[in-house]
């Protein structure tokens, strides 16, 4: 487990205390014990003035307050009075339709929120620094505002493309990134361990977004008022399916950034060169522009996809032991070899997936579905074509006879006996990759493969799944 540090000064805490022995300020209640069970995610949010950062964070926080409606069983707790007061203020402004004031200048105190019963039975503690937009004018100020800068695992760069395009103040995407980079470099932060989520705010106002992005925003299954009832309650949250969609949109937005955003190409290249994990999302905190004269909403807010940056952060900063444990497990790669399986092999998906798994430290044993005997052992490349004689789409004998605890299944159709394992240990450790759009399996970990999807996206989702 990583060291537990004071969220106000990053002094290492070794015992439960009410007050930090280094900065003498009160610690969030139960912070030490909390972090032992719910590893912290250190998060910094930043963006230029008027780019909608504070409004977005308000929408997000209020969405987190109703997280149980999205993720059944999940709930949050404010860990100190400061966070409690800040959220109460956000709630009040939302009820009145007022827009929150900009983040004030001055040393930043983080919001400390614990989130419980997340997917995969995890709890996390969010330590969130909201950095005022003005300080991005003076790069050297950032470390003063964010005492926990060296701990930051995830940065949200909140950018409004409508404001950026107007460009009255000469801001640019590389400019914002450079501000972060300079500050992090001063603190000798290992950039390869950093995740950057570019959050395009006010996405409802961007006219030239690809159609896929607009459709994605409108199809948010949880697009309701920030504090209101959720029509989708009880529908359940298929985390893997949602992450899959997020990954797809991230790729669309990255390409859009590369081609259409001023300085976007330089930014993407820089991020990749520095080895950071780079993801993109588009959000609308309000679903509408507020009345300019009164800075109030004309109707109830309808935020769209505001959870996405949060979910990215959870996923990208999952505890190292989750990844390590996954790599210790034996992995089965099960390939459809039925009569209609040829397209899987024509696209080279099995080999691409096998290679990606190998790169990530998961040497896979490969079986055809419907064949107990392995067709290749860990280290051997998988077959390039289906078996000469088509095999049944059956999985039970393979799963029950293997020592594996994780499996990836590539299939073009339904698997006769998959439902037998819905209530067992494989429920959370068997990853189904199917080319069927309307598969009836309703398997909890399903990736609907479409031509051109990357193998790395599939493995990302696989490693996020935790065996019970």
């Amino acid at each position, binding site marked *: 487990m990583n060291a537990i540090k004071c969220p106000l000064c990053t002094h290492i805490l070794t015992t439960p205390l009410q007050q930090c022995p280094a900065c003498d300020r009160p610690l969030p209640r139960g912070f030490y014990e909390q972090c032992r069970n719910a590893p912290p995610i250190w998060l910094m949010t930043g963006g230029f003035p008027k780019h909608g950062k504070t409004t977005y964070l308000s929408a997000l926080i209020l969405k987190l307050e109703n997280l149980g409606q999205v993720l059944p069983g999940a709930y949050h707790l404010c860990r100190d009075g400061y966070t409690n007061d800040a959220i109460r203020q956000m709630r009040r402004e939302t009820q009145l339709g007022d827009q929150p004031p900009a983040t004030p200048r001055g040393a930043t105190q983080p919001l400390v929120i614990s989130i419980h019963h997340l997917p995969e039975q995890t709890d996390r503690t969010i330590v969130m620094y909201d950095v005022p937009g003005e300080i991005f004018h003076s790069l050297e100020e950032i470390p003063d505002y964010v005492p926990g800068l060296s701990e930051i695992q995830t940065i949200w760069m909140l950018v409004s493309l409508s404001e950026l395009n107007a460009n009255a103040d000469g801001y640019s995407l590389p400019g914002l990134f450079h501000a972060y980079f300079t500050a992090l470099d001063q603190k000798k932060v290992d950039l390869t361990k950093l995740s950057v989520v570019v959050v395009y705010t006010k996405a409802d106002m961007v006219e030239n977004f690809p159609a896929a992005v607009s459709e994605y925003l409108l199809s948010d299954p949880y697009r309701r008022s920030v504090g209101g009832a959720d029509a989708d309650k009880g529908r359940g949250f298929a985390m893997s399916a949602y992450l899959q969609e997020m990954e797809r949109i991230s790729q669309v937005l990255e390409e859009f950034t590369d081609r259409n955003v001023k300085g976007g190409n330089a930014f993407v290249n820089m991020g990749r060169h520095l080895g950071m994990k780079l993801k993109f999302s588009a959000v609308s905190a309000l679903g509408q522009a507020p009345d300019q004269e009164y800075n109030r909403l004309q109707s109830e807010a309808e935020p769209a996809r505001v959870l996405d940056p949060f979910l990215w952060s959870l996923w990208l900063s999952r505890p190292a032991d989750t990844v390590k444990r996954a790599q210790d497990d034996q992995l089965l790669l099960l390939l459809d070899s039925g009569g209609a399986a040829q397209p899987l092999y024509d696209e080279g998906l099995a080999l691409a997936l096998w290679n990606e798994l190998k790169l990530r430290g998961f040497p896979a044993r490969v079986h055809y579905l419907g064949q107990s*005997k392995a067709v290749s052992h860990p280290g051997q490349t998988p077959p390039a074509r289906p078996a000469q004689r088509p095999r*049944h789409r*059956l999985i039970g004998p393979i799963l029950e006879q293997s020592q594996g605890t994780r499996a990836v299944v590539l299939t073009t159709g339904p698997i*006769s*006996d998959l*439902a037998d394992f819905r209530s067992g240990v494989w429920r959370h450790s068997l990853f189904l990759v199917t080319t069927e759009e309307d598969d009836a399996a309703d398997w909890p970990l399903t990736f609907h493969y479409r031509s051109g999807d990357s193998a790395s996206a599939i493995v990302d989702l696989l490693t996020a799944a935790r065996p019970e």
Partner: protein
Amino acid sequence: MSEILYDAAGFPMLRVDAIDAYIHWLPVTKIQFEYFLCDRPSSQFDQDWYNGILQLNPRVSPQQIAQKNYWESFITGIRPDEARAFADWCGEQDGAEYTLPTGPEWFKAYQILKSDPAREIAEITTEKLSDRTRKLLIRIDKAVRDRPRETLSLADQMLMRDGVMEWVATEADKRPWAAFGQPNKTFFANLYTPDSGQPQIPNDYEQRLRSHGFRLLRRSA
């Protein structure tokens, strides 16, 4: 000598001294047969063949087994020669001799087991079973017990009645196969009872009979 053994698919067989053999606790299930299909891919038992079987009697997952559908667990619509292929495969796995019972063997076992009381299913569902098999046995046992009846014999618990018709071998050259047992009436309405001691003789061995499954004997070496 152990009273319970497990076949190649991990399903229990109960020793019946009167016939000097172990007999499957239940008619052979689709899960058992799928072990065979996955171990011996062949053109005879290909996907079309299995689709035809499932059309006659669909598949049910263990967690969905209930009084209204438990017979869907069993492989039926199967012909005697196909059942024998499964028996041969079982034998190849552990070196023992597996066969379909003869009519007299089936009936003798039935009479013995009919006079024994049902057992606690926990005696059968040991840690040797897979989760899936354990679930299947428990759910079927519950479905059987939930059905109102005066007494529950071991034969009833093993579904020698109220289950499926079961292929047995005869000594007649022209009609080498017959069937004992009794299908659940919701599955296949019928008036036949095994208590008559007379097996049911099918008219046509080529026809797939929806109600017909089987269980095996493992001969003591």
